[in-house]
């Protein structure tokens, strides 16, 4: 292990509110990277915009801090172009399930070897407290004055319904468990969703640390390879299971399925231009 490598970016301090759950996720990530003996230069975190999406700013790794809702497409492309990189897409519930909902669906379909970390605080933090796609019915905010009237999305059930190859939920208050889950997600070869419950201490006065503690439990005695059972567990609402719901280690990744990347031809990015081929292609057009 490269115990000496620090993943902490020590130049600027996190701009989060004191006590925010994001600090725990940040810490968990540093731990995960160290435990997995990753090199900072070989990790890329792609993020959107939001409080959660600031996380890579505070880590000593490569960062692609792109557009709100749009972390997954660049993450997919980055992994496809350079499969030696460990690629993580990270952002908030609004980012990933609201603005970015379409990429969520289609990235699952592609199954790139990308770890998808969603800080689910059930609220829009950075824009100051509007409802998010995971806010519960009745949740009041300055915009949802009568309380939320749309059903919350269940990202776990949805990912399972799309056949995602790794679907998990964590609660950052249990940092050890969170570390374990994220580690497994990164180790999983293929798309891996970790929906991380993250209390927003400023805006979400309902889903607090205490609430998550009371309303979550660790999934046990569960067959992660049975998709139907996974779905049933995912729809539990009384208390919310955290852990791995579903995993399919057999599913080929996007990179594996991309014939162009096939082994033997060498590093994709450093392949020389096929001038001969181009010449032939032009030649053909004489006929």
């Amino acid at each position, binding site marked *: 292990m490269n115990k000496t490598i620090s993943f902490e970016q020590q130049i600027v301090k996190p701009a989060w509110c004191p006590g925010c759950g994001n600090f725990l996720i940040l810490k968990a990530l540093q731990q995960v990277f160290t435990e997995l003996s990753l090199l900072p230069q070989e990790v890329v975190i792609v993020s959107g915009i939001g409080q959660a999406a600031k996380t890579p700013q505070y880590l000593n790794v490569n960062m692609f*801090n792109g557009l709100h809702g749009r972390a997954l497409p660049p993450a997919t492309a*980055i992994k496809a172009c350079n499969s030696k*990189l460990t690629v993580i897409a990270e952002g908030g519930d609004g980012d990933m399930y609201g603005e970015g909902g379409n990429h969520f669906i289609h990235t699952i379909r592609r199954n790139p070897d990308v770890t998808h970390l969603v800080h689910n605080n059930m609220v829009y933090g950075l824009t100051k407290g509007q409802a998010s796609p995971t806010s519960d019915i009745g949740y009041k905010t300055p915009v949802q004055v009568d309380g939320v009237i749309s059903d919350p999305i269940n990202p776990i059930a949805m990912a399972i319904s799309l056949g995602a190859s790794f679907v998990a939920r964590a609660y950052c208050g249990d940092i050890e468990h969170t570390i374990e889950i994220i580690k497994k997600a990164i180790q999983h070869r293929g798309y891996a969703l970790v929906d991380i419950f993250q209390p927003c201490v400023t805006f979400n006065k309902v889903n607090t640390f205490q609430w998550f503690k009371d309303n979550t439990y660790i999934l046990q005695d569960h067959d992660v390879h049975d998709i139907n059972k996974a779905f049933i567990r995912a729809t539990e609402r009384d208390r919310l299971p955290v852990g791995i719901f579903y995993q399919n280690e057999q599913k080929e990744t996007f990179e594996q399925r991309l014939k162009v990347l096939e082994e033997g031809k060498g590093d994709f990015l450093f392949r020389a231009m096929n001038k001969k081929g181009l010449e032939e292609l032009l030649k053909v057009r004489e006929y």
Partner: protein
Amino acid sequence: MKRENKPQIPEQDISIVLCGEAGQGIQTVEELLTRILKLSGYYVFATKEYMSRVRGGSNSTQIRVSSKPIQAPVARIDVLIPLDREAIKHVSYYIDEHTIIIGDEEKLDTNKKVINVSFLKMAQEIGKAIYANIIAVGLLLGLLDGDIKIGKDFLTDYFTEKNKKEFVEDNIKALEKGYQEARRLIKENLLKSERLPKLKKSSKVKNNLLFNGAEAVGLGAIAGGCNFISSYPMSPSTGVLTFLAQHAHDFDIIAEQTEDEISAINMAIGAWYTGARAMVTTSGGGFALMTEGLSLAGMIETPVVIHLAQRPAPSTGLPTRTEQGDLLFVLYAGHGEFPRIILAPATIEDAYYLTQKAFNWADKFQIPVIILTDQYTMDTYYNIKKLTIPKEEINNFIIKTDSDYHRYNLKIKDGISPRGIPGFGEGLVRVDSDEHDEMGLITEDMDIRKRMVEKRNAKWYPLKKEILPPTLAGAKDYRILLVGWGSTFNIIKEAMERLDRPDIALLHFQQLYPISEESIVFLDRAEQVISIENNYSGQFSRLLEAETGISVGTKILKYNGLPFYADELAREIDDILKEVAQK
């Protein structure tokens, strides 16, 4: 535009139009005929117009055949092959007393004179109805004195791989039959017309290339080192995606069809971030969805190449038609202020070379480069000479980073900080859509903000040093200056040549932004400037006026979804000049 049919000068080419329903095989006739004619020693030109539907409707292809280079459509039909009942009506605007109509009289419903050729019956005699199209190819080949031997060889090559021997032989028979039929018609003197010049063949033409704009952009992308294309299908831009997908294996290209255009542009930017050379291809509506991503590229200074094939808008508009209506949108698209280059190929050759250039410039300046074409460009081809393969290896301007790498180094004067990529060297590569410091980390320091704005926009200076000057065609000593951009070049040029005046020239722009400062000199020398654009509001004239301060006197604008026609345009310019002369 108004209709008038007196040709100013005797025509030196033959304009053939095939018209029928989608699915009737017009494409096959077009493809075979043009290639065989070219191999026979002719210059050919082909373009098409078609409806946004898969079957039925009325589509047409215009093929011009000549002894001299020919690269524009005309509003005139010398020989019409109507393939269904609607065909004659569909192109009636272009038919005049000199038009020879050849077809299955029975199946047409017209009071116009038709030279009866029972394609279907003849085909059935050979074996199957589908041979009718090849009979038509043979007929036209015969009519134009094409080389039947070359035709047979070509057909053999064309069909052999995927088909039974018998089928190939039947097709050859059909070709022969059509050819003989033409001989018969000629012999029986049925084909006489005031407007069918005798064409000469030339062996020089044989090695000319024949491919359309979509292929040219695709080939240019390959020559530009493109190894990633992420796009969402959208007419008329899909051809480029298809082309690159088809050649993905040979050229190591990842070709991904995305869920939407937003994903497409964000993937492309992600690919560039790793060091790949990525492009997207789209049309106006898809580009609209990409404008946020365009602005992202501007901010994080990641190169990106965008191909936009224009079609008539607003909104869905006319998906399979042509227009030059998105220029000003493209120029200012994306919130905020950052440099970009806009290129608009004037010819097939341009489409190849400029696309290649787009990749190199994008990488060199770390900016978005937009290639603006249109449906007309995508679907048009004509003989072109040999193209060159890039001699040097791609220079992607990527550095190996060291451990204190700063992505947005402010010390670099021209704004172009050396670009590192993740995993190559000791450094970390941080790019950020927020305003950022030199390391790429979020900042709200107002002084850094100011300097970063200046850094990004400083790139205007080096890139302005490389601006492509506009092309001047026609009289050096002009009094009248026509101005055009992009796909209209050859059309305006032919129109100008038709006018046969010593005092007229064409100033044509392939780089739309930034505009070359030389333009002012060219414009200043003109007594009268007439701009010609395929849009309603004269977008380029407005831009040119704004940039040069010189006002464009007259605008010829066409916005019905069709390209200009060289002959019609010539008449229109002539009318304007006459009007001015009278005043």
